[in-house]
């Protein structure tokens, strides 16, 4: 069974985000970029399936600018077999990404697709579910556990209030949550090997998908700043402030 996995190039998890002075967007100039953390977990899961003999090939896909191939190389160094970059200088919205992925699925016929549940830039949490709709496949979202049989995947989902276990028919689209696994670091020899693995560059037009805007970004602002309050010297003073000043207890 082939496993298809997706990665997105996003601002590094540890970088403090700054909004551009003209409020048109977030400033990404000279900012460290990385694989979206949720996508990294997806890649790790796919590679583990291959190591366990359950996946025959791991194909990793990214969409974005030319340098998104850095993130694809990272995934290849973690153990994916080959990569596809769908190159687009303009940012693609979730529905367009899902439409292109649906075409790639038609070509590659994977038995399983594993994606991050959301990217930490737009925080949309949409593409996996949209892809499941477009392909008519089952969906297992926000998963923290996975067991495969021949015909279905049993997934543990992180839901409000606890955990839910679903059996979803294969082929399925899965989106992963943080606790599914701990991604490995790529070793230096594997990073060198990854440079020789195949990486195809395509365009949305190659898949016959029209790049369409479903939304228009009008403005990006920093959030309202919260002012630091005061330091209290003792528990007694804290209780007094909460009772008499803030009046919340």
């Amino acid at each position: 069974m082939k496993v298809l996995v997706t990665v997105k190039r996003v601002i590094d998890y540890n970088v403090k985000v700054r909004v551009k002075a003209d409020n048109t967007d977030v400033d990404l100039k000279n900012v460290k970029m990385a694989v979206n953390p949720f996508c990294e977990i997806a890649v790790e899961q796919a590679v583990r399936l291959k190591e366990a003999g359950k996946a025959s090939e791991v194909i990793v896909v990214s969409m974005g600018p030319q340098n998104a191939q850095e993130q694809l190389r990272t995934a290849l160094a973690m153990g994916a077999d080959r990569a596809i970059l769908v190159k687009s200088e303009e940012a693609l919205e979730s529905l367009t990404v899902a439409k292109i992925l649906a075409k790639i699925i038609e070509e590659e016929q994977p038995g399983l697709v594993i994606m991050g549940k959301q990217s930490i830039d737009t925080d949309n949490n949409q593409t996996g579910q949209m892809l499941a709709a477009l392909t008519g496949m089952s969906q297992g979202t926000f998963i923290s556990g996975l067991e495969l049989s021949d015909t279905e995947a049993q997934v543990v989902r992180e839901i409000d209030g606890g955990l839910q276990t679903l059996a979803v028919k294969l082929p399925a689209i899965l989106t992963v949550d943080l606790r599914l696994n701990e991604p490995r670091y790529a070793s230096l020899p594997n990073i060198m090997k990854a440079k020789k693995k195949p990486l195809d560059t395509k365009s949305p037009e190659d898949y016959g998908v029209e790049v369409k805007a479903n939304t228009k970004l009008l403005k990006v602002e920093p959030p309202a700043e919260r002012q630091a309050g005061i330091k209290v010297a003792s528990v007694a003073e804290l209780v007094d402030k909460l009772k008499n000043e803030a009046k919340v207890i």
Partner: protein
Amino acid sequence: MAILLIAEHDNALLKSATLSTVTAATQIGGDIDLLVVGNGCAAAADAAAKVPGVRKVLLADNAVYDHEIAENVAALIKEIAADYSHILAPATTNGKNFMPRVAALLDVGQISEIMSVESADTFKRPIYAGNAIATVQSLDAVKVITVRGTSFDPAATEGGSASVESLSQVTDTGLSRLVSEELAQSDRPELTTAKIIVSGGRGMGDKAHFEMLETLADKLGAAVGATRAAVDAGFVANDYQIGQTGKVVAPELYIGVGLSGAIQHLAGMKDSKVIVAINKDEDAPIFQVADYGLVADLFEAVPELEKSL
């Protein structure tokens, strides 16, 4: 203009996130119909009919909608979507699960987790874990939207008298089935609706010490939350997690104990009305957002606080 609002419920009552979504729908304007979908959820439909401002309640009560399996619920919503300009649901794990599927079936985008309504097609939403706020205009004919519950006051639960109409459609895709569900059993209020939250981080040290916070919470009638670090360390279950990838909360009072205030955690609680921080590290970033900071050893301060209440 008419709005279809998919209610989140526990079969008997509407969840508070649904009532907040009704408020968002009211701000958009137009007729509001509530869809109550599930298995054995007629009582929730009756509760929905009493919410002021609701035109009618659509009830889809069938075994195929048990636990709101996304594939079946999305297929149902697609079938009844034609009459609506907007489709709204709370941005709970449930809404986040089926709504993008609805959007793709309708060939439109989704605007996720709106925190304000600027006009019928323009909304504000957090991006980059709330470190930036985007104003986004929908260009689609049908606007599919999830709503951040803590950003809108809940609508009233009494005073309305909408009719309840049963839907005959049964959309069974046969793609997924429920195996089991483990919900945390607790007498404490739910995190996302609690007025007071006591929350702990890695500084709690271990599971046994975390119980200190539970004792404090019970005294205050509060819910208990945690940072991702505390969850990952195994102190508490995952559904306690507050932050970018956990729950977003905005209580009247948030007491953060032994947590440093990583940006991912702040993203989930910085809209709280009053923030208290107890930490022995006076440089912890949590003090930069706290209204009242107490630099102290939590193992002394927490029992003392509990006793003085």
